């Protein structure tokens, strides 16, 4: 049987494909999970590093600003102290020396204000927990206290006393005090600078730490990224390879399927031909001969033998019915018209046959159709027209159909139009249409159906004509 091996092959193909599918699906699922996790980690790493760097930078920036601000504030406060000391110093000197210089000195309350300004400046100095600074500030306060005491005394002096003791006071008390204050403030200043340097160093250290942490994180992310790119690349390559393999397998199986259906059509045609031949030649002819013999028999039996005559008549009618059905079946399977008459008369026969059986009138129009077309071409055109007309008459309830066959130099075109209720060729594609398409494609032709609901249908086919069409086989 020609059907067996293809059937097995057809059953074999999808089974392995399904197995492959299941396995690759499992692989793909695993790989996808791995990739999602890896990318998740990479993303978390990058976000973490970024956030960390951002926060640390903001913090560092704030610390550096704070350090600078404290340094500046102390410096400024120190400057204020020094300036106010200088102002007070100047005032008190002018007050003490006003008599010698014969100039009007400042008012004692002004001088008292100036020393109060020094105290205020000292109090305004921003204090933090540094003990060295505390000590220096304490001794500065001590000095100020002493000076305030002396100042109160000096301001109470009248002119004579001032004249007698001004230089002595200035030389022995004011200048040394002033010098001490300056020394103290310069000590505080250097301490301040030292502190500033230390704080700056701390900020720099923290910045370096941040830097190295960032470098580490970025390198980690980079390595992970490269690794994942490699994995992804490999995965994509694998997918591509799989797709290519799948496509090739598909193309191959389609090719096989095409060959298979071509063989199927061929086998079907051959089968029909041989059954038709058997029926027509053997059974049909035997029955025909039987009819003749029965006719002879009826003549041998005397006409007044009613019973036997009736029996013979009955035998005849049974045999006639059998001949008729055998002929109908044989014609349907393989119309001998194709071989006896050629293509166009066979098509005309078919058209009339359909008109007899159905409500559809068929018109056959042909141009330049040669009588010695290849057997395959004839059978294909015949079956095409048969199928299309059958569809038109039975499914589309058409009233009229037209078959046009035109032969060109290297091709033959067939068109079957009907005025039935049509269909949507994109959605409805029954076995009949597939069969037609297959037959046409087998001969390397083109096949189209134009139809829409309510608009009839047009089946068009174009077959190339080969020199090497197999010769006509008589059944």
């Amino acid at each position, binding site marked *: 049987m020609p059907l067996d091996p293809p059937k097995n092959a057809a059953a074999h193909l999808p089974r392995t494909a399904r197995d492959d599918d299941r396995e690759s699906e499992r692989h793909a699922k695993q790989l996808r999970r791995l990739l999602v996790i890896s990318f998740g980690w990479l993303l978390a790493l990058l976000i973490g590093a970024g956030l960390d760097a951002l926060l640390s930078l903001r913090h560092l920036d704030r610390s550096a600003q704070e350090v600078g601000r404290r340094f500046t504030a102390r410096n400024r406060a120190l400057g204020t102290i020094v300036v106010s000391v200088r102002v007070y110093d100047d005032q008190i000197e002018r007050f003490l020396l006003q008599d010698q210089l014969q100039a009007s000195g400042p008012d004692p309350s002004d001088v008292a204000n100036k020393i109060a300004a020094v105290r205020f400046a000292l109090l305004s100095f921003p204090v933090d927990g540094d003990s060295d600074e505390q000590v220096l500030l304490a001794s500065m306060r001590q000095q100020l206290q002493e000076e305030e005491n002396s100042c109160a005394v000096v301001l109470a002096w009248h002119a004579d006393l001032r004249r007698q003791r001004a230089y002595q006071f200035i030389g022995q008390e004011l200048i040394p005090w002033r010098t001490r204050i300056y020394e103290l403030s310069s000590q505080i200043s250097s301490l301040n600078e030292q502190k500033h340097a230390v704080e700056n160093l701390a900020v720099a250290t923290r910045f370096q730490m941040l830097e190295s942490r960032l470098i580490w994180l970025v390198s980690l992310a980079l390595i992970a990224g490269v690794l994942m790119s490699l994995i992804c690349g490999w995965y994509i390559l694998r997918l591509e390879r799989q797709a290519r393999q799948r496509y090739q397998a598909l193309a191959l199986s389609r090719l096989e399927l095409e060959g298979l259906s071509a063989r199927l059509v061929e086998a079907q045609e051959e089968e029909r031909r041989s059954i038709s031949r058997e029926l027509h030649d053997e059974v049909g002819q035997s029955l025909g001969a039987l*009819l003749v013999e029965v006719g*002879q028999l009826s003549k041998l039996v005397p006409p007044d033998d009613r019973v036997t005559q009736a029996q013979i008549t009955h035998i005849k009618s049974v045999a*006639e019915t059998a001949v008729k059905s055998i002929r109908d079946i044989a014609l349907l399977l393989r119309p001998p018209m194709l071989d*006896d*008459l050629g293509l166009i*008369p066979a098509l005309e026969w078919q058209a*009339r046959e359909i*008109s007899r059986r159905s409500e559809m009138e068929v018109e056959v129009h042909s141009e330049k159709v040669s009588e010695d077309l290849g057997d395959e071409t004839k059978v294909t055109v015949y079956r095409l027209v048969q199928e299309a007309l059958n569809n038109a008459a039975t499914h589309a309830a058409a009233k009229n159909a037209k078959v046009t066959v035109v032969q060109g130099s290297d091709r033959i075109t067939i068109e079957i139009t009907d005025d039935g209720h049509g269909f949507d060729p994109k959605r409805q594609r029954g076995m009949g249409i597939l069969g037609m398409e297959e037959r046409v494609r087998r001969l390397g032709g083109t096949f189209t159906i134009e139809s829409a609901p309510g608009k009839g249908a047009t089946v068009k086919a174009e077959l190339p004509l080969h020199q090497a069409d197999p010769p006509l086989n008589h059944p």
Partner: protein
Amino acid sequence: MRKIRILLADDHKLMRSGLRLLVEQQPDLTVVGEANDGREAVSLAKTLKPDVVVMDIGMPNLNGIEAALQMTQTNPQISVVMLSMHSDESYVLRALKAGAKGYLLKDSAESDLIKAVHAVAESKSFFSPAVSKVLLDDYVRKLKRSGAEDAYDLLTPREREILQLVAEGKSNKDVANLLNLSVYTVETHRSNIMEKLNLRGIPELILFAVRRGIIS
């Protein structure tokens, strides 16, 4: 009396022997040969020169139609009766074009064969009654659906007369003699008939006549 000499051509021995049985019951008929296929039939016809060839259409090597064509071309005296399973006009027309004078359906062979042989031996046509019925049915159905007129109604009584005589196989001269007309007038009538009925050639004319039951 000279017997009518018959050649039987059918690829089935059973059928041939049945036909032979029928023929040989008639005193004026004799079977001179049997052929198994078309090619054999053609060569036997050449050597045996039978009066009538009774031949099946569906035969191997050379089918009956081709064989009839070759026989009637080489020897127009031979009258061919086609035996066929098919009453369709494609077959009848092909058989007529091949020069066959009779067309017999196989299932009516038993009752009509003798009539057919006698008819064609006298150069008359013979068609199984079932054939003309099928042809007429097809024609009427087509007319009804297309709404066209029956072209036969367009013919004058004289033209109908001439149609029948021509279809029966008479020559223009015979017709002219029978109807007391000039050959030229008969020719004019004939071409008018062909034009009115839209026919090309004598085979189509005979087919038309058979369809209308003018001849059988």
